[in-house]
């Protein structure tokens, strides 16, 4: 039963919202969207079809770096069934360069839908539209491109060297962004510490989540209406629309985005706007809808990859009792060839400056450079997993080098339960949690004392095996404050965040909800139905949540999409707000119909009644009838004040960060995961086998625990893959060496271990529903497995300095007798 005190009670206090949730919210109800997906009835982008559509094929550069002397499309155009071709030069004449996030000098880069110079293997230089997919591909092969190959640079640190080849001549260097983040007093800390641990280099490798469904779009630039209909699995449509409108010279209202189901995204499908722009322009030229479905090899070459980062000259001041004071380092991030979402990564990491730890003194000299590699895109844990991995390596290394117990050292340095809300050195506010307890639960999952016992017995058995035990963590900062973009570029017109939803009553009393999110497997139809059902005294089965994103639903703001662990906060609280607006309207109409006060209306099982009196009641169909089709029955002041079409925008409380000091609250919530694992290392082969794996998450109030657990499993699977199997490797000439699932080993069911899970629920004091976003815990396995390998290698071994550890690297570490990559200075 749902009671409410005033018909217009929408402005929620945190307490009042949480009291209204509980019958359905917090329960593991099976997902509503599964039925169609299990029957093969999902509507994915390649399932879409339009009358007169043609198929697009992008011709992509085989070179890592090359000038284009000329392109001749004559032979391709002569093929019967080819509708149109376009080159980069032709497109550049018909649109404006894309909006740029970077400040000068990188702001001078002018990028168009197709390249005018090839800057990575896979850079699209021409496009064909033809009657069939095969014909488009064949015709593209007939396009003659005269390339002048150029030397390439594929390393972010080398790219910063003025002697390296320059990708974008107009900026005179390969610098995408540079800035210094300086908090506390690192010089003081290094001078006054009892020990200083120095690490030469850590390297976080390139990989991506490679969603099983590749990118795709079907675009029709309608010559009659001049509207551009875009069916696409892009995951942040409202970012793309803000880029594309000015570039294509059309109004935002002319860009009509729509999609139903998306086969995973993980951040990788955020930056599809160049391809969509190319499809729009060739659709206009040919007067036909243009359909493109990315091939897997095309995806691997050009969709986008996660940030690769190199950390140099790391210095860590440590006190005698194990207190770690902070760190200093230089970071070089590899943006790849274009800045499609970068250099946002150059600030996003600073949402988690000290990781889980109470470090006070931090100095990071951060450089992002352009290289002849596929452009970087967000990838599950975007820009933070690199930093958090580095921090866990630091803590782990301090424990090893100074012979602290790795568990006790972490507990000593963690932010403590009584510290929350905890302000980090750069002004971010960690909302809630209990890290020592979270770690204890993770250790319990792997039976830590027994694992240590096993480690000793295996070591003494002489069987050529070693056991290692690892610990890692990830902070999943969710609901970001877009104002942090101004730390990158003070001129950017972004700040805050938010999301929209509508909840409506249709003509016969049907409850339905539309969302601004673009879900890619997170179960938004289910979790939104759970909260709406609670507010409206209904069952989730009675709440239809319309699938996918559709701009014409009107449930959007500039931030709409699915990314950065925020739906549980932004999208869900938008749905809650819209449901409360609708409930207030229902009460107003019911009060008029039942001749009572709105405060006396109760809403339960599709019926509004006077204080639960079944004799004095009106069903939702009656309410809808009065508003939609029978309004002369209503007093005018009631009829004029309701629509039963309620839209609500949830806006988190943010202020604009200070771009000069680089301080501010950059994200609203901080979910945490702590992982622990036991590995067996084969001394002969370097093969790592995971014997036991535990993951504990704390994401505040869980809306659907089973969905949360599924996210933990999934993030862990991808993290295990990255740690042991998955890496994108380039040759010096910029050739990608593993551009298919043959060579890039996406983990299988045999590679991912059984995953044990546990949880805490530390409600966020900053969100109405106490939830925290939590989809991005993918970083923890990288730190956890590196920690376990280091543990197995034992005292005096070389530092595990790379996030990716295939057997050959572990084999070399086992046999290394040279520089260890780490040294300790003790006063």
């Amino acid at each position, binding site marked *: 039963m749902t009671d409410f005190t005033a018909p217009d009670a929408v402005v929620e206090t945190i307490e009042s919202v949480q009291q209204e949730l509980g019958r359905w919210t917090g329960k593991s109800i099976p*997902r509503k969207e*599964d039925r169609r997906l299990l029957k093969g009835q999902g509507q994915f982008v390649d399932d879409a079809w339009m009358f007169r559509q043609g198929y697009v094929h992008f011709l992509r550069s085989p070179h890592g770096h090359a000038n284009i002397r000329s392109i001749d499309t004559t032979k391709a155009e002569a093929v019967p069934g080819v509708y149109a071709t376009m080159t980069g030069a032709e497109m550049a004449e018909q649109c404006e360069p894309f909006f740029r996030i970077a400040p000068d000098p990188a702001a001078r880069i002018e990028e168009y839908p197709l390249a005018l110079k090839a800057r990575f293997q896979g850079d699209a230089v021409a496009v064909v539209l033809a009657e069939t997919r*095969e014909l488009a591909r064949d015709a593209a092969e007939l396009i003659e491109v005269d390339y002048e190959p150029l030397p390439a640079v594929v390393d972010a640190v080398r790219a910063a060297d003025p002697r390296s080849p320059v990708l974008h001549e107009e900026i005179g260097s390969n610098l995408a962004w540079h800035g210094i983040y300086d908090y506390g007093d690192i010089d003081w800390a290094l001078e006054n510490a009892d020990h200083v641990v120095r690490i030469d280099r850590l390297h976080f490798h390139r990989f991506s989540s490679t969603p*099983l469904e590749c990118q795709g779009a079907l675009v029709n630039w309608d010559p009659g209406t001049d509207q551009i209909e875009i069916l696409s699995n892009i995951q942040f449509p409202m970012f793309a629309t803000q880029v594309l409108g000015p570039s294509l010279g059309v109004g935002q209202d002319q860009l009509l985005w729509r999609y139903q189901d998306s*086969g995973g995204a993980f951040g990788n499908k955020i930056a599809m706007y160049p391809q969509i722009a190319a499809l729009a322009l060739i659709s206009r030229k040919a007067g036909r809808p243009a359909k493109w479905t990315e091939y897997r090899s095309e995806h691997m070459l050009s969709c986008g990859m996660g940030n690769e980062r190199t950390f140099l000259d790391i210095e860590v001041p440590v006190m005698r009792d194990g207190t770690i004071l902070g760190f200093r380092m230089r970071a070089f991030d590899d943006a790849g060839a274009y800045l499609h979402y970068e250099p946002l990564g150059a600030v996003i990491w600073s949402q988690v400056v000290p990781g889980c730890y109470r470090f006070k003194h931090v100095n990071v000299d951060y450089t992002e450079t352009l290289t002849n590699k596929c452009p970087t895109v967000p990838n599950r844990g975007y820009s933070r997993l690199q930093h958090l991995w580095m921090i866990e390596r630091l803590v782990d290394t301090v424990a090893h080098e100074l012979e602290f117990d790795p568990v006790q050292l972490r507990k000593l340095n963690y932010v403590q339960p009584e510290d929350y809300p905890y302000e980090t050195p750069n002004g971010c506010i960690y909302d809630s949690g209990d890290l020592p307890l979270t770690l204890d639960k993770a250790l319990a999952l792997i039976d830590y004392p027994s694992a240590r016992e096993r480690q000793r017995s295996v070591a003494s058995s002489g069987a050529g095996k070693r056991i290692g035990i690892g610990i890692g963590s990830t902070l999943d900062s969710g609901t970001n404050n877009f104002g942090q973009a101004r730390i990158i570029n003070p001129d950017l017109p972004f700040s805050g965040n938010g999301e929209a939803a509508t909840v409506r009553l249709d003509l016969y009393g049907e409850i339905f909800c539309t969302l601004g999110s673009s879900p890619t497997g997170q179960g938004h139809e289910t979790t939104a139905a759970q909260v709406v059902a609670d507010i409206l005294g209904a069952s989730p089965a009675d709440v239809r949540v319309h699938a996918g994103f559709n701009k014409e639903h009107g449930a959007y703001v500039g931030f709409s999409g699915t990314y950065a662990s925020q739906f549980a906060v932004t999208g869900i609280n938008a749905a809650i707000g819209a449901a409360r607006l609708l409930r207030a309207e229902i009460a107003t109409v019911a009060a008029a119909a039942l001749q009572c006060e709105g405060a006396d209306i109760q809403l339960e099982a599709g019926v509004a009644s006077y204080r639960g009196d079944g004799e004095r009641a009106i069903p939702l169909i009656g309410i809808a009838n009065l508003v939609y089709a029978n309004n002369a029955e209503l007093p005018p002041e009631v009829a004029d004040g309701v629509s039963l079409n309620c839209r609500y925008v949830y806006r988190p409380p943010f202020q604009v960060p200070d771009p000069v000091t680089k301080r501010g609250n950059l994200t609203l919530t901080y979910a945490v995961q702590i992982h622990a694992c036991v590995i067996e290392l084969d001394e002969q082969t370097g093969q790592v086998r995971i014997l036991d794996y535990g993951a504990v998450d704390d994401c505040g109030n869980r809306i659907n625990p089973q969905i949360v657990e599924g996210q933990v499993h999934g993030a862990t*699977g991808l993290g295990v893959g990255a740690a042991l199997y998955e890496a994108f490797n380039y040759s010096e000439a910029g050739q990608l060496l593993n551009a298919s*699932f043959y060579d890039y080993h996406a983990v299988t069911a045999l590679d*991912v271990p059984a995953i044990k899970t546990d949880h805490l629920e530390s409600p966020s004091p900053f969100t109405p529903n106490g939830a925290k976003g939590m989809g991005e815990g993918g970083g923890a396995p990288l730190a956890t497995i590196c920690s376990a390998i280091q543990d197995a290698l034992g005292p005096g071994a070389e530092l595990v300095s790379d996030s990716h550890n295939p057997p050959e690297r572990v084999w070399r570490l086992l046999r290394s007798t040279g520089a260890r990559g780490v040294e300790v200075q003790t006063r």
Partner: protein
Amino acid sequence: MSSDAAAIHAVEVTINGERYERPALARQLLVHFLRDTLGLRGTHIGCDTGNCGACTVICDGRLTKSCMLLAAQADGCEITTVEGLAPARGDLTPLQAAFNAEHGVQCGYCTPGMLMSASFLLERNPNPSEHEIRRGLKGNICRCTGYENIVRAVQSAARAAAAATAKGNS
């Protein structure tokens, strides 16, 4: 574009019990024949190289990646796709219901192929161990679930089938 590639073959197949006869280009893949020619779009494409298993169907009793077979090679075959598991508007099969109950579906893109491999496995091994399930699904890549709940779903379906059999025998 040689003349061989442009050659057209008449392909006759039985899919989910229904007989189809359609022309196919010599180089048309079975998966494109299913999706584009016949409109059976529950079978998905994830990799083009036979690694990911999104296109898995059962062809003449063999688990088959339909991107690894030409449509012309399937001439005369009997094929089951995901659409053949449960009626379009009817109840889920016990295996599908187990995927729902155990949250073995996230984005749903690998799901049709995963279901074909899992049902093929359970048909031959009604009581598989966890390792046997993982081996049986190793040709199907899922990027969302970490496989944990998929394995649980198959275990749950196997248990339910065993319980139903025991009940039937008692």
